[in-house]
């Protein structure tokens, strides 16, 4: 207790006032040595995650490996099936005391977790142990670092890739080894696909609000103000600019010209974009590299589909893809021994060998540079070159405020505003300018409401 207050005081006086956007109050001391002093071993910890199917299998294997290799810590995995559900349960747990020791939450939860004051920042343990982050991919660490504090330990990094049916491309007279890389190329390819009858439409696109975020990052544009929410707490969105309008216009015109269909983001229809490629209704779609392993095994059942993987297409600009996926937060409400145990497990999952096995088994990007030389990844990348695409485009991107990724408290509110606007645009024919303005308006209202409620 005293050490924490001491740290707080030190941080307050040293870090200076304006602690908007992230927190100078990186409170918490890494309880190294607590396991050694624990009354009973092994120390049991509960880890909440949202991995399903192939990803869950791989995670379970890694966890079993960890449990078997040492006597001090035993990890129990609890599957919450979705990041949203995990977060809902976590919030409920803050009230009821029913919390895990380590929780996997998606990239967009960063500001929320900082504001929850329930997290022991990984930075504390990194500093205490002098943990070496130099082998980590810098952009990944940067994404989860706000004001020099690394909050979670990164774990599963993914980004968006283009999936396309090589057989449909061949039938349309397109080169099956060349994936379209820009909006214009997608449009051209779709026109050929539709006119040749290779598929009903060219592209099946989820009305996912994260896509505009990625597209603006690719064009080198920040999504919200105040340095994308990293210099100070974001107060307004910044996406209602000409680049954003281009994105919305492209979506609207593709759907209007019957070159693309839109599919739901979540729920029962959440896989419809993939199903559309599988049953020949579409030839291309966009999906997270995280699902690659699962998709490949499922698509394998459809003889008329040969899956090709290409980089995430988008508008031109000096940007890159955003770091997506999720990361592991150590919950500071647990006992010191459990917190240290959580840190150890998170470290294990960050080791090159673990990352190699993890990436090969799922499609997530390995976050350790040395991991790519290890056998599992080398083998996987040779077998299925598509797995390498996400890694390459992550490293290829520029490093600037836009590609560092937005940090927003009420991410959900902003995303909902964007999703509703895009849907209105494609189903009701709202003009793109009106749609983007409405999205900006409602997103700003959500941000304002959150900021007021959290009290700076």
């Amino acid at each position, binding site marked *: 207790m005293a050490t924490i207050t001491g740290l707080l005081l030190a941080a307050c006086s040293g870090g200076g006032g304006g602690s908007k956007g992230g927190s100078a109050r990186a409170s918490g001391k890494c309880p190294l040595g607590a396991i050694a002093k624990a009354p009973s071993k092994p120390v049991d910890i509960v880890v909440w995650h949202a991995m399903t199917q192939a990803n869950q299998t791989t995670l379970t294997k890694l966890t079993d490996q960890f449990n078997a290799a040492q006597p001090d810590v035993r990890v129990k995995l609890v599957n919450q099936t979705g990041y949203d559900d995990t977060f809902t349960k976590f919030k409920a747990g803050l009230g009821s005391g029913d919390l895990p020791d380590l929780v996997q939450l998606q990239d967009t939860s960063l500001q929320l977790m900082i504001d929850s004051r329930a997290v022991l920042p990984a930075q504390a343990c990194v500093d205490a142990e002098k943990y070496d982050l130099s082998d980590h991919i810098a952009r990944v660490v940067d994404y989860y670092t706000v004001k020099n504090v690394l909050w979670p330990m990164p774990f599963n990094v993914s980004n968006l890739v283009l999936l396309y049916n090589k057989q449909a491309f061949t039938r349309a007279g397109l080169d099956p080894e060349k994936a379209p890389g820009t909006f214009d190329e997608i449009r051209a390819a779709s026109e050929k696909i539709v006119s040749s009858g290779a598929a009903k439409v060219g592209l099946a696109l989820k009305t996912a609000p994260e896509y505009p975020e990625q597209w603006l990052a690719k064009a080198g544009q920040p999504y919200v103000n105040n340095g994308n929410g990293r210099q100070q707490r974001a107060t307004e969105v910044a996406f209602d600019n000409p680049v954003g309008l281009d994105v919305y216009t492209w979506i609207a015109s593709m759907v209007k010209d019957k070159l693309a269909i839109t599919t739901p983001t979540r729920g029962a229809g959440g896989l419809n974009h993939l199903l559309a490629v599988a*049953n020949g209704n579409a030839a291309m779609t966009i999906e997270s590299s995280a699902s690659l392993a699962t998709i490949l095994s499922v698509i394998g059942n459809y003889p008329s589909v040969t899956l090709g993987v290409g980089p995430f297409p988008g508008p031109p600009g000096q940007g890159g893809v955003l770091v997506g996926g999720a990361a592991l937060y150590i919950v500071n409400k647990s006992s010191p021994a459990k917190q240290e145990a959580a840190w150890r497990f998170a470290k294990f999952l960050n080791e090159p060998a673990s990352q190699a096995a993890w990436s090969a088994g799922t499609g997530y990007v390995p976050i350790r540079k040395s991991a790519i030389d290890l056998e599992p990844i080398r083998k996987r990348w040779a077998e299925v070159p598509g797995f390498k695409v996400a890694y390459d485009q992550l490293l290829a991107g520029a490093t600037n405020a836009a590609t560092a990724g937005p940090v927003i408290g009420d991410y959900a509110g902003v995303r909902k505003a964007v999703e509703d606007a895009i849907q209105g645009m494609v189903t009701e024919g709202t003009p793109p300018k009106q749609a983007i303005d409405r999205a900006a308006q409602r997103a700003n209202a959500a941000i304002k409401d959150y900021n007021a409620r959290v009290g700076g």
Partner: protein
Amino acid sequence: MAGRRLRVVARYTLLTALAAIVLFPLYITVVNSLLPSQQLLARPPRLFPSSPEWDTYRRAWNAGHLGRYLKNSFIVTALIVSGQIATSILAAYAFAFLRFPLKRTLFVVFLATTMIPFEVTFFTNQQTIVSLGWYDTYAGLAVPFLATGFGTFLLRQAFLQVPRDLQDAAALDGYGHLRFMTRVAVPLARPMVAALALFSFFAAWNQYLWPLIVTKDDRLRTVQIGLRQLRGESVSDINVTLAGTVLAALPLFILLLVFQKQLVRGLTAGAVKG
């Protein structure tokens, strides 16, 4: 003669057409649950499984933990139904046969609870359950629903129908209230009690929002939330999800077939009296 036969045929045709429409969603679900994955997307859609894949049912049962979900649903429903019947019998008896100050006011209070929709109470109730330490327990799932104003109203109606002579005769025979309740009043009100039990059962079995917010993992999930979970976990294996759905509906189907007559009798008693 021919005219009448035509009319009969017409009636059967109409009935059959309607029956087909009503049954169709169930039928197509069973079909889809038995199709191998790639055939699910076949265009035109298949209406009959040529090589049924029974394995989906095994997967839904095992990986989908359906046995556990069904068990939980049954336990919670049993708790709620027995609680509601017990408290309703006691309260209805008091309102029908006893005199005490403020009786009319209190009865209105009971009726008022039927006006309070669930939305008004669920989040406060969740916090109450948590502070009682009943989060993720059978108690948390059942206790808030152990009393019902609607049930009290129904049973009071039934008790009021008990003929005066019976009451007087019982009094003369020296029957105390307990004996009167258990030997006379409740047996006479049996149709209404059965009706209440049935309504309670279906309401409890169909609870969705409450089990969603007071359970945190598979241990105590009821079948409704279990299905939601299953759909989330096997979203690419639609046939497995549908198999799970069929399995989840099976117990109630069996109950329906077995208790069909009682069901109708019970509801006759309830509905016609208004």
